């Protein structure tokens, strides 16, 4: 405790870091999605009602029923359904320069997924714009195998 000491107001403060890597068992549905990402392929799962959920969940978010075992490849291109501009990126976020968070509906999907868009400037962002993934060369089966999305035609 207490490396920095600010006697003016009598307070006593110290830096503290909470750092721990979680090893998470992902289960067969998310596991299939992440395995796809490692192989630069994006897959969704079909619900009983025929909606395609991406990233796939074990359940239909509308009804909580189990999804089917039918997987479909989606994207890789998609449409931005909403976005928010980040002027000062934080530690562990996908990019270390200003970027947009966006919900992206990949072609063939019925839901949107969150990722970063490397657009350079907020003026380059627009709801409805087309984006495509920028894959990492080294992929390990994480959502971050997609480094970010980039504006596309």
């Amino acid at each position, binding site marked *: *405790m*207490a*490396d920095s*000491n600010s006697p003016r107001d*009598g*307070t*006593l*403060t*110290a*830096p*503290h*870091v*909470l*750092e*721990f*890597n*979680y*090893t*998470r*068992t*992902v289960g067969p549905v998310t*596991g*299939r999605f*992440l*395995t796809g990402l*490692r192989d630069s392929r994006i897959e969704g799962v079909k619900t009983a009602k025929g909606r395609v959920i991406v990233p796939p969940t074990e359940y239909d978010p509308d009804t909580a029923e189990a999804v089917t075992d039918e997987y479909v490849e989606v994207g890789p291109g998609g449409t931005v359904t909403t976005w928010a501009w980040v002027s000062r990126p934080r*530690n*562990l976020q996908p990019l270390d320069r200003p970027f947009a968070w966006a919900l992206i509906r990949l072609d063939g999907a019925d839901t949107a997924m969150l990722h970063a868009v490397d657009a350079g400037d907020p003026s380059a962002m627009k709801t409805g714009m087309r984006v495509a993934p920028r894959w990492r060369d080294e992929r390990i*089966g*994480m959502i971050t195998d997609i480094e970010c999305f980039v504006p596309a035609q």
Partner: protein
Amino acid sequence: MSEEASEEASKEASNTITEIIAPCRLDYTIAAGEAQRPFLRGLAGGKIMGQRCPRCSKVYMPPRGSCPTCAIPTQEEIEISDHGTITTFCIVNLQFYGQAVEVPYACCSILLDGSDLPFFHLVQEVAADQVRMGLRVKAVWAPEEERKPSVESVRYFKPSGEEDAPYDSYKEFVS
């Protein structure tokens, strides 16, 4: 299934992602509270400070600013002896990541003279099989120039050479 196909299937399965390692790091600036500040500043000056409850007169070290029995604030600062008694202990034989001390070592519950709250600390300069309930110990302080407002100012405790404390003198804190 042919041997080749089975091998292919198991290869496929081992290729499936079943786990991820998700990094986590959060940075904080912790501010010591009213009760902690005199305690920490005391350690920098080579003193162990506690607080006394105005109602039941129990003395708490480390002080938390309140009495858990009376649920009222504790404010009276009391200097406490750096000699105490081991009320209970365990011997650690397990090496774990980041561990600074060599196994086996004794992790002890120590009741300082004048305090009503045992706390955990290391006891060293004694063989693990010589550590016992009732053993009298004293603080080994960091050299004066290395003392900080931190619990690290007390390096560890070691036997003080006094006669063992009788069980009755600390039984309230183990039963």
